């Protein structure tokens, strides 16, 4: 054995929980190599001292303290249930509150006229009151659906204009999302690929989705205590 291999062999012996002197090769090498013998001795000193270390006794009342601590903390399952319930309520609110907003807005403002060449039947995308949609229902819906709802009578949306020109061959869908802003806006998809994309033009007052979500959550959280007190009564 070479000296370069000695330490690795020494560690291998220790890894197998064997004393180095039990390894014949190590022992023979140590017989004629003083440097490696010193190294083996150092390992021996270290481990002998380590095994001689006394570990202090753990506190006698540990189990009592652990049980006390367990009692003082709410159970994980209950916390998870509450969290799950909150998430579920928030998710539900994300769908319900915007619809309510939409209904309220429309009833406040009266029927809103749809502009653009092809209008959506309320039965196809029923995301609110049917008020004001009767005339839209009368329009033919052919091919890809384009919905454009704006406060302005005349839309300046380039995609809508394009749609006017191309009629039923237009492969685009404009999604109307009344829940997102305080006033309705138009979100245009990517006309070329047909894939949805963020709006190129946004009506004034349209808010980012994240802002809308946080507002909705805020509304929900404000409503929670009221709900609880209502359920108690």
């Amino acid at each position, binding site marked *: 054995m070479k000296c370069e291999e000695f330490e690795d062999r020494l560690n291998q012996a220790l890894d197998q929980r064997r004393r180095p002197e039990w390894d014949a090769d190590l022992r023979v090498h140590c017989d004629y190599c003083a440097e490696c013998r010193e190294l083996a001795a150092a390992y021996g000193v*270290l481990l002998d001292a380590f095994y001689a270390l006394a570990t202090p006794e*753990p506190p006698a009342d540990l189990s009592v303290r652990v049980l006390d*601590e367990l009692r003082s903390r709410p159970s994980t399952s209950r916390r998870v249930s509450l969290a799950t319930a909150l998430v579920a309520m928030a998710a539900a609110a994300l769908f319900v509150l915007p619809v309510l907003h939409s209904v309220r807005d429309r009833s406040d403002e009266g029927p809103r006229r749809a502009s653009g060449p092809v209008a959506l039947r309320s039965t196809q995308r029923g995301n609110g009151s049917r008020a004001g949609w009767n005339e839209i229902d009368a329009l033919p819906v052919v091919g890809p659906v384009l919905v454009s709802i704006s406060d302005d009578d005349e839309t300046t949306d380039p995609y809508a204009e394009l749609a006017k020109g191309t009629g039923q061959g237009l492969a685009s869908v404009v999604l109307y999302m009344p829940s997102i802003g305080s006033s309705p806006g138009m979100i245009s998809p990517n006309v070329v690929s047909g894939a949805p994309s963020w709006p190129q033009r946004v009506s004034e007052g349209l808010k980012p989705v994240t802002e809308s979500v946080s507002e909705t959550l805020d509304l929900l959280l404000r409503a929670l205590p009221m709900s609880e007190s209502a359920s108690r009564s």
Partner: protein
Amino acid sequence: MSDDVRELVDRSLRGDQSAMVELVEQYRGQVFGLCYRMLRHRQDAEDVTQESFVRALKSLRKWDRQRDFLPWLLAIAGNRCRTLLSTRMRQPAASPLVEHLGDNTLAITEANNLAEEVELALGTLRAEYRQAFLLFHQHELSYAEISATLDCPLGTVKTWVHRARRELIARLVKRGVVEELRHEVRRV
């Protein structure tokens, strides 16, 4: 692993407090031993031991019944220790670690025997090396068990244990506890 532990776990899961007490009593020495050697501070070790048992009892359902209970429990304790150690690193003023003693005469006088020197040297190791070393030499876990406990490859665990041994010896040499070695120590 004996079925006794599984039974204790089952009873604990049903809310039997006497079973929880039995579990704590059965393993408190090993958990506290690890925490004490990792943290080198009795009060911190007691707190972390308590916290480890609380966490273990609250997440008993996560224990893989095909595996031994002790490595799983020690993994929780080790993680808590490492968290505390990293907190100490961010707050050096409050740290009781050995490094702050330095190599001054006072420290030598205080640590006037080999056991204390080894204990001091342990405190200078990186947390991963120390934990792997303690799990191997103190708790006599196999490399495979340590690998599962620390969630790292077996080869890495071996390297950590070897480095821990080497660094401890280097520390003892530096402190004059062990004679200067003429053997060229290779890097692992």
